[in-house]
């Protein structure tokens, strides 16, 4: 029964499925604008609460800026993550993914990319404004943006494993934050250390290297883990 197909044909149909899914998820995100704007609004509000809470002391704000912005970005990512597979799980689309014959890992990667473009990239683009707001020295502003650029995809990728595991649960979102925050700790430490080193005029290349390594590892491994987690949630 199995029909022989030329291998480039299968590769082509996999690429087509990847792009179709990416397009659909972006379209859906723009149809539901509240979901699109929520992480950004959340980040803005949380970061702007800090100067109000601890007083407008420029030196102090500059000192805590990397940590505050990164923690707020981390929280915003986790809040947005809960919806990553939720609607596909609820309406049976995930089952169709599994039946489609395309590798679930690839489809999970498409969903993560779409999710990062919608929920992660705006945070990166907003961060220079927040850095100025928090009186971060100009010389470390670029490093701040760079760490978020490298770090937020890692957050989405690692988070996707947790979402895959909790999507079948009624209140998975609460469990999700407990599950993934410990895994986020190394990224938070390395990223804020890079920005602080830049503020102090110290070399920060090693930290950026570590973040890049983290990104490469999570891009290659996390989709497999997330796909396996989804399969467990489905059965």
């Amino acid at each position: 029964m199995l029909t022989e197909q030329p291998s480039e044909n299968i590769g082509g149909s996999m690429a087509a499925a990847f792009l179709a899914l990416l397009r659909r998820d972006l379209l859906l995100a723009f149809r539901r604008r509240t979901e699109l704007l929520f992480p950004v609004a959340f980040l803005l509000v949380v970061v702007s609460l800090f100067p109000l809470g601890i007083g407008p002391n420029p030196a102090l704000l500059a000192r805590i800026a990397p940590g505050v912005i990164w923690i707020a970005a981390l929280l915003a990512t986790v809040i947005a993550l809960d919806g990553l597979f939720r609607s596909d799980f609820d309406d049976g689309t995930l089952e169709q993914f599994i039946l489609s014959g395309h590798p679930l890992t690839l489809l999970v990667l498409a969903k993560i990319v779409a999710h990062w473009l919608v929920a992660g990239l705006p945070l990166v683009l907003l961060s220079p404004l927040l850095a100025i707001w928090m009186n971060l020295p100009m010389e470390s502003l670029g490093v701040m943006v760079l760490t978020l650029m490298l770090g937020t995809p890692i957050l989405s990728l690692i988070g996707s494993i947790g979402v895959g595991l909790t999507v079948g649960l009624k209140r998975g979102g609460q469990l999700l934050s407990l599950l993934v925050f410990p895994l986020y700790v190394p990224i938070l430490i390395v990223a804020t250390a890079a920005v602080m080193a830049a503020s102090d005029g110290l070399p920060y290349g090693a930290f950026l290297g570590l973040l890049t390594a983290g990104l490469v590892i999570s891009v290659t491994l996390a989709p497999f883990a997330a796909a396996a987690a989804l399969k467990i949630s489905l059965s």
Partner: protein
Amino acid sequence: MLFVSEISFERYFEPVFQPVSFALEAGGLLLVTGANGCGKTTLIRVLAGFLHPTSGNYTCQAPSTAYVGHQLAIKDDLSVIENLRFMRNFLGIRQRSCKAVMQRLGLDRVAGQLARTLSAGQRKRCALGRLLLTDSKLWLLDEPYANLDPEGVGLVDDIVINHLAAGGACVLATLGNHRPGWASSQEYPLISGAGEC
């Protein structure tokens, strides 16, 4: 195309249905019937591979399977045409026309409407579009007649019979008395649990 021997499935150590065995050849239609809760949906989900059978085994020689169940897998925030276009591009069959599929389903009047504004029957028709956009030889249909008007029921029969005539096979779970008019169909009355009911 599909050989099933003594499949059983247990939920919380209780068998959902009595062991199931059947063979389905190309062009064959298997009607799974039985009362509410006798495990029709569970059986279909086991055959689709979503659930692992507790015992028994099955071999499926079809390279891929199409499944339409209770969860329709259409997106409320996409229009009918966008939903169908995604199904087509996702399944990688670009040469089929979504417009033709929509006409066949009787949805051309609501092409641009968001799926959330459709009636239950129209949503079902939209989900059945998947069958017109797939190359799969084996179809697993779980209550395909639910929510459909008599014309929609006729449409499902048409689609299924065309598929069977083209050498496909179909497992169809249904509750009602309606049957597609197909000669080589067999009926499988599913018996629930350990057999006491």
